């Protein structure tokens, strides 16, 4: 098992995709914070825009299709907390896009080029091949989150100077920790879909569609059906999905929302890993 993990780490470090994705993570962090700064400047120049942003924040309980961040009108004149910026950018799903792309490419590569045939037969329990991939994904997602947070913070510091402050470290770490687990849960879901479908295109498309919120109408339909059956439940499926929790588990989220996010993220990691191991073990290697 440890040998397989070493193999996948070596592959990860020698894959072009790893470094391309990390480069894009840096660029995306700079881009995202710059866009937020642009929003802040627009609000400063146009008070009407402040009102629009405030309305967006107030009415943010329902998610919309697409990826966007909302700048807080208080950031125009007041101080800007690092945690708020990171939470806003990560909750938007920007980083998740890259996680999905990397997971699909990394997991499918071994099957696509047939390298799996060199090693799969040597291990009586082929499920181990899944665990080593999950370990590599866990490291890469962590690396991406750390790089994104560090670059976003440095960009913020360069743009806003003294107005940009660290704030509560524990809240920031808590938020990043929960977001890490949710992003890893999504990577595990992509791992499962890629192994199941043997197609990176399929898993990537499904992941990206979920990431940008195209499943929201489906969630609404499910919510409506459940409401029709049992109105008293006040059921919202978004609370139990990865994309829903990523958008909700921001730095200001209630403790119960964060606990629920941890449970959802952990459950997806465990369930997707077990299912992937079963598929890998039971199915013939092509």
């Amino acid at each position, binding site marked *: 098992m440890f*040998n397989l993990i070493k*193999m996948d780490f*070596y*592959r990860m470090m020698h894959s072009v995709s790893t470094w391309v994705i990390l480069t894009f993570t840096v660029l995306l962090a700079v881009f995202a914070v710059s866009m937020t700064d642009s929003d802040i400047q627009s609000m400063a120049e146009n008070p009407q825009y402040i009102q629009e942003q405030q309305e967006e924040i107030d009415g943010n309980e329902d998610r919309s299709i697409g990826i966007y961040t909302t700048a807080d009108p208080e950031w125009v004149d007041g101080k800007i907390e690092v945690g708020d910026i990171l939470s806003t950018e990560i909750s938007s799903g920007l980083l998740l896009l890259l996680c999905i792309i990397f997971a699909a490419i990394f997991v499918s*590569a071994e099957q696509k080029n*047939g390298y*799996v*045939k*060199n090693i799969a037969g*040597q291990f009586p329990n082929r499920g181990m091949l899944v665990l080593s991939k999950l370990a590599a994904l866990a490291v890469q997602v962590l690396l991406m989150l750390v790089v994104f947070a560090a670059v976003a913070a440095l960009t913020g510091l360069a743009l806003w100077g003294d107005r940009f402050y660290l704030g509560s470290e524990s809240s920031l770490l808590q938020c990043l920790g929960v977001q890490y687990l949710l992003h890893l849960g999504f990577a595990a879901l992509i791992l499962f879909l890629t192994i199941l479908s043997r197609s990176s295109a399929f898993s990537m498309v499904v992941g990206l569609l979920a990431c940008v919120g195209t499943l929201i109408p489906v969630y609404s339909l499910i919510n409506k059906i459940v409401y029709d059956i049992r109105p008293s439940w006040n059921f919202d499926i978004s609370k139990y999905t990865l994309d829903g929790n990523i958008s909700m588990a921001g730095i200001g989220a209630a403790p119960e929302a964060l606990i629920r996010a941890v449970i959802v993220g952990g459950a997806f990691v465990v369930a997707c890993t077990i299912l992937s191991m079963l598929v890998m073990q039971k199915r013939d290697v092509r």
Partner: protein
Amino acid sequence: MEYLLTTNSLTKQYGRHKAVNAVNLHVRQGDIYGLIGRNGAGKTTILKIISGLAAPTSGDFSLFGESGKGAAIYMSRIGTLIETPGIYPNMSAAENLKLKCLAMGVRKKGVIEELLKIVGLSDTGKKKLKNFSLGMKQRLGIALALVNDPDLLILDEPINGLDPQGIAEVWETLFKLNKERGITLIISSHILEELSKIATHYGIIHDGVLLQELTREELLSRCSERIELKTSDTRRACTVLENMGITDYKVVDADTIHIFERLNDGGEITMELAENHVKTMGITVKNEALEDYYLNLTGGAANV
């Protein structure tokens, strides 16, 4: 342990189609076992099952005298090259080998360089595999199969797509591995003539059914393999042959002699003729009879 590998009514069914139907193979240690059959005969499926890449629908196989879970512990003593070599095109040959070494826990120093040397890829350096020729990729596939110092090497169509020189290089490498390291080889091919250059035992498979298992000698005795010698002077050539102790030959026409013994001594015959100033216009091992034998067994040329 009489056999290194045996299969016991090995069957693989996809829907209603039996790709492999109650196959019983017998491979001894040190054999070069040629699994011959036309495309779609079930060769790859058998090899995949033996390699642990596919599960049989019924039947099983024993490895080193152990079957079932007992055989599973010996899977690490098998090296495989199934269909095309599984390689990362954006990595070098050494990096691809390093991956397999890490996976198998092979820490021996210099093992990668040694493997590259065995397959003649020592000078490829950091060249990416996407820039390799098919033959080079095929040889790297063999090197990958050798990483864990296997006792049994399973190669599925290792000469597919190779030019004659590439084929000769692969055969030479495999022959050395068998003779010098004592590695047992199972090689599948749909070209009996090619396989006959190296195999010591044969399994002929057709439509998922193993039709026959036979040794090289048995096959040759049934096929009368021969050397076809084209020369400018058959009379003097016959004298030279007889001086070499070759008596089992036949003069077919004015410039052609068929020799039915010492089939591996083509080079020696050519040299001896040259020393006696007899010009050799061509010398080849003719295997049409081998192919005919195979075709007859599998239902004739109409099936190919």
